[in-house]
């Protein structure tokens, strides 16, 4: 067993993609920053000094404490300061990042699932099936994703009873971001599927009478997946930003469970009255997160592009 692991680790290290990674300082830095942020978010319950989402633990008198100073009320030190409610900014950022990442990831998975399925079907069957799916995609693309997301959010909101709205907010967000983003997955998978469907190994499978479901899932799907990783990564960056935007606009994560976007919204109100830290630190975190994912995605696209090899 040990020999196998050593062999595998070596193979991963030696693989072309790892080699390219080692050649690109930008990629290395982005990857490290991203991993750091993800780990911080993952271990938030262990790292965060305070629990910002528990209203009972907040000390109102500690509100507006500047970074590094002690609060008026409790005397405890807040590394990055507190907001108007006495929430520790550092802890809020950690938990907020957790939320943003979770929503972003789930939304991308949803978008990928919808997009890959529709793209496969459109590419393989062609004809009117393809035409219908692509027209739906075209129509959706004419709307900015924010509007689509807001629309879905509004509809979902209207359908849920008010008492569980806050709890449902996260799932509604995932649904709305995911539904607004499936098109690029569909388009790329569709063009790959169209190319692969004409190849002779597909004909060989059809010839022996294999069912369509088998051909789509076992023959076609593995061969259209390569661009998906790149699109997924860039989609993640976009999803994070979209979620932050929605939360900033007030139609996303609620103040009781704030994501980075919500924190920015709160901070914005107090910028000009001097409490700059409430806005600055969440914004910086969002910037780092989105930028590192985006750069990673860009690098991956260049590296995995077979034409550039």
């Amino acid at each position, binding site marked *: 067993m040990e020999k196998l692991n050593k062999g595998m680790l070596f193979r991963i290290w030696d693989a072309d993609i790892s080699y390219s990674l080692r050649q690109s300082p930008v990629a290395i830095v982005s990857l490290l920053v991203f991993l750091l942020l993800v780990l911080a978010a993952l271990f938030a319950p262990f790292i965060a000094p305070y629990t910002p989402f528990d209203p009972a633990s907040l000390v109102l008198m500690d509100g507006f404490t500047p970074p590094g100073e002690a609060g008026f009320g409790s005397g405890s030190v807040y590394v990055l300061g507190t907001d108007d409610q006495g929430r520790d900014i550092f802890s809020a950022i950690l938990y907020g990042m957790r939320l943003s990442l979770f929503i972003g990831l789930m939304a991308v998975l949803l978008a990928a699932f919808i997009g890959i399925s529709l793209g496969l079907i459109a590419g393989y069957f062609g004809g009117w099936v393809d035409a219908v799916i692509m027209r739906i995609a075209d129509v959706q693309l004419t709307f900015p994703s924010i509007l689509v997301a807001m629309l879905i959010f509004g509809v979902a909101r209207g359908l849920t009873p008010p008492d569980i709205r806050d709890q449902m907010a996260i799932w509604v967000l995932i649904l709305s971001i995911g539904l607004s983003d499936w098109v690029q997955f569909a388009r790329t998978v569709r063009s790959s599927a169209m190319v692969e469907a004409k190849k*002779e*190994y597909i*004909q*060989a499978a059809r*010839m*022996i009478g*294999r069912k369509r479901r088998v051909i789509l899932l076992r*023959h076609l799907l*593995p*061969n259209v997946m390569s661009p998906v990783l790149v699109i997924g990564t860039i989609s993640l960056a976009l999803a994070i930003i979209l979620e932050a935007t929605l939360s900033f606009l007030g139609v996303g994560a609620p103040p009781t469970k704030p994501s980075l976007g919500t924190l920015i919204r709160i901070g914005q109100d107090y910028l000009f009255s001097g409490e700059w830290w409430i806005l600055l630190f969440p914004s910086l975190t969002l910037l780092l997160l989105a930028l590192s994912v985006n750069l990673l995605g860009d690098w991956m696209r260049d590296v995995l592009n077979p034409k550039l090899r």
Partner: protein
Amino acid sequence: MSDVLVKIAGLTRHFDVSKPLLNRVLQREGRKILTAVEDVNFEIERGSTYALVGESGSGKSTIAKMLVGLVQPTSGSVLIDDVNLASASDESAAKLRQRIQMIFQDPFASLNPRWRVREIVGEPYAAFNKVSTAEISLRVDELLEKVGMSSRDAMKYPHEFSGGQRQRIGIARALSSDPEFIVCDEPTSALDVSVQAQVLNLMRDLQSSLGLTYLFITHDLAVVRYMADQVGVLYLGRLVEHASRVALFQNPKHPYTKMLLDSAPRLDGFDRVHESNGGEIPDPINRPVGCHFHPRCEHATLQCKSTSPPFKRDGSSVYACYLD
């Protein structure tokens, strides 16, 4: 005397290549029909090799696809052991599919790049028989040995092999369901000469040891001479000549066959002067009226330009030409 396995009668296939309705209305164009295959008739005897020769636009690939059920004929029939694949019930169709297989031209596109060789070669066997994984594995090993490869190759991926080896894997796959009839669509056109020799020899050996029947599609007359018992020559969808191998090469009847034989470069053709037969294959959508070959034929008469010539028989040769 003869035991006919495959019988093609009146096989025809049209493709509608018209522009979409709106375009046609705006540009005032009619429908465009491409006749890829027109009224093709021939028979293949059990255990023999029938070579179908043609250049681009001849319809040979379409015929291949109709024979294995990938494309439906517009009219005419394909009978394999007196069973019509197109109109058979689901059950007979499945049984029939097991007896037919295909070997493809492109060694790079004919194997699923994400599957291991074992899965690729075992797929037809597993699809037609209820067998366990171990049994599939055994069968795959057996097949790989038969085509001159080793059982160690079963767990590799296609990209680890050369073009010739991939073609062998394709042959192993074709043998997997124990078929009787194999359609070979230009199986060696993409291979180097020395590798082609290996694959052709392998196919001949397999034919004699397993009693296979081949339909061998190619544009290379030299390969035809090596592999075929009977030969059919296609031009723009029509079978213009059909003869035994010996008769075709020694005494070609149709002017197109003669032109093909003359054009084929020969290993002993030093300083050979070709008969300058000008012209190229016309667009298959706008085939010449009458005998399709008449624009390129130096003996063309008025009759050739107006009506399609009927078939004539001379010994074992059947050909469509007004000339004697």
